[in-house]
């Protein structure tokens, strides 16, 4: 009874918020049709261009590129060698090649495409007790055959360098966090962050040959975004703490990652009917990272936080038929010709909850839901918007809400009542999620 009331209240308030602010999503194929036409497979990574004052950024960043590209199924020429090669050819600056025809890269090296990256921002800032690393990168994949831009994105990543520590005592936490902040920034090893950032941004790239879903990911949905290029880091943070304003364009993208598998054996109780609840099962010891792509929980996973650059007017076609788990949504909410452009998002990951969320203004949207997690079992899907936790409506400051779900996920027998809005249906669902140790 309570639940129904809550659902009603939430539905009403959620609809108000929802109205002008549907998350703009497009399919990979709509966004990057040339990728599917040319199907580039071998990538020559050029040394990054750097317009920041951080000389280090270039070196940091180039080491972070090959791994995520390889995971997207590409053959990547070793960046160390390609960097030296460019120097030996007298090409010290990638800028020199930016507008040049690229056919030589195909002729000499067999490269299908050349990756240009441009580091626009690489700043460390100290705010309150946390230190943040803000990285803004623009990237372009250009064909060596046609010289066309096949794929491009721009994104901002804000990494929290403050580390992790929580004792449950707020005062102790503050002190511990302050100390850890000092340590971490002194060590100044940003490689993992640069890597994380790249991995996150590359989620929009259509998979290549060595990826099992190569050629089949055209209907994967990605966020349609305009790069948040010129926003100072202070504004990036503001967007997560400012008063609710659903029309405000949020800024800043945080790259982070949902754990593929939660540590604990998770179980969800399903008080009301959830669509095809996936019952939790023991994790597969053999193939922990090898989830079937068709699973409703995993299919949208690769759609995570995508920063792409195309303007709304450049969308060529409306969303085409999307894969099974998404089709009901796409039917009820076809892509509008002029979707609102979200400048960027902030993604927060909680390993324990199995959720990757995006903060848009002061709303929490699901970027992905870990398969087999309590949340997945309860029927939460990527693209849903969270409305309330334990009857507390999500508004105002976001972090206390995130803390709530993390606490639940982390404590023995932790449970939380969660309400969410499924895209397109305007229907609020409520479930109690229970985590079992």
């Amino acid at each position: 009874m309570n639940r129904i009331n809550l659902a009603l209240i939430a539905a009403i308030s959620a609809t108000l918020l929802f109205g002008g602010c549907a998350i703009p999503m497009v399919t990979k194929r709509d966004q990057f049709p040339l990728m599917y036409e040319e199907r580039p497979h071998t990538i020559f990574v050029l040394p990054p261009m750097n317009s920041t004052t951080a000389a280090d950024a270039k070196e940091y960043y180039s080491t972070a590129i090959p791994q995520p590209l390889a995971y997207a199924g590409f053959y990547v020429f070793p960046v160390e060698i390609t960097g030296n090669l460019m120097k030996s050819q007298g090409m010290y600056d990638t800028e020199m090649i930016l507008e040049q025809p690229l056919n030589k890269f195909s002729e000499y090296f067999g490269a299908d495409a050349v990756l240009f990256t441009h580091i626009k921002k690489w700043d460390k800032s100290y705010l309150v007790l946390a230190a943040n690393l803000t990285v803004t990168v623009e990237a372009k994949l250009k064909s060596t055959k046609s010289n066309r831009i096949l794929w491009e994105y721009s994104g901002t990543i804000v990494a929290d360098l403050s580390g992790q520590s929580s004792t449950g005592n707020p005062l102790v936490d503050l002190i511990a966090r302050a100390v850890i902040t000092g340590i971490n920034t002194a060590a100044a090893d940003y490689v993992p962050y640069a890597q994380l950032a790249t991995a996150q941004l590359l989620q929009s790239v259509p998979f290549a040959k060595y990826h099992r879903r190569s050629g089949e990911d055209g209907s994967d949905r990605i966020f349609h975004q305009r790069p948040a290029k010129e926003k100072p880091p202070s504004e990036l943070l503001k967007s997560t703490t400012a008063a609710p304003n659903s029309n405000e364009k949020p800024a800043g993208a945080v790259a982070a990652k949902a754990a593929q598998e939660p540590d604990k054996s998770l179980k969800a109780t399903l008080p009301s009917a959830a669509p095809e609840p996936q019952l939790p099962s023991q994790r597969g010891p053999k193939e922990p990272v090898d989830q079937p792509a068709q699973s409703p929980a995993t299919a949208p996973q690769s759609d995570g936080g995508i920063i792409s650059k195309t303007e709304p007017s450049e969308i060529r076609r409306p969303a085409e038929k999307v894969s099974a788990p998404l089709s009901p949504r796409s039917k009820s909410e076809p892509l509008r010709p002029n979707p609102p452009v979200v400048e960027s998002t902030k993604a927060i990951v909680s390993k324990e909850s199995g959720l990757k969320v995006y903060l848009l203004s002061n709303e929490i949207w699901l970027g992905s839901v870990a398969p087999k997690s309590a949340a997945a079992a309860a029927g939460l899907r990527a693209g849903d918007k969270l409305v309330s936790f334990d009857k507390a409506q999500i508004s105002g400051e976001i972090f206390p809400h995130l803390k709530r779900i993390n606490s639940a996920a982390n404590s023995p027998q932790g449970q939380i009542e969660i309400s969410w809005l499924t895209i397109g249906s305007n229907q609020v669902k409520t479930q109690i999620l229970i985590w079992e140790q």
Partner: protein
Amino acid sequence: MKIIPFLLTSVLFLSGCTTPPLKYYYGKYSTTLYRTKKDGTPGSLENHKNSLVKIIQTSKERGYRVPPGIYCEYAYLLSNEGNPEAEKYFALEIETYPESERFVGFIRNQIKQSPSK
């Protein structure tokens, strides 16, 4: 009760979640590569070589394909030392990734032309 334990833990899961269907072992590749660029010392180069060897070994043990470019990079480092083993690893790169043939050929030629480097 962790508040935002996302970044550090998530790094560990990096390979696991971006692209579930592909398995590579990368070890400490990006870190040791960065060190060679940053420090430029013989020690850091040695570390990076070890990390390449570890990638090759571990990939074999686990039955994974050695990631793109790793054999080639190792061969390149060996050839810079004048180590004849380099040829073997160049060949392995081409065997594993036939699409690398033109690139590997170019590198081999370049090395032949400038034996000093």
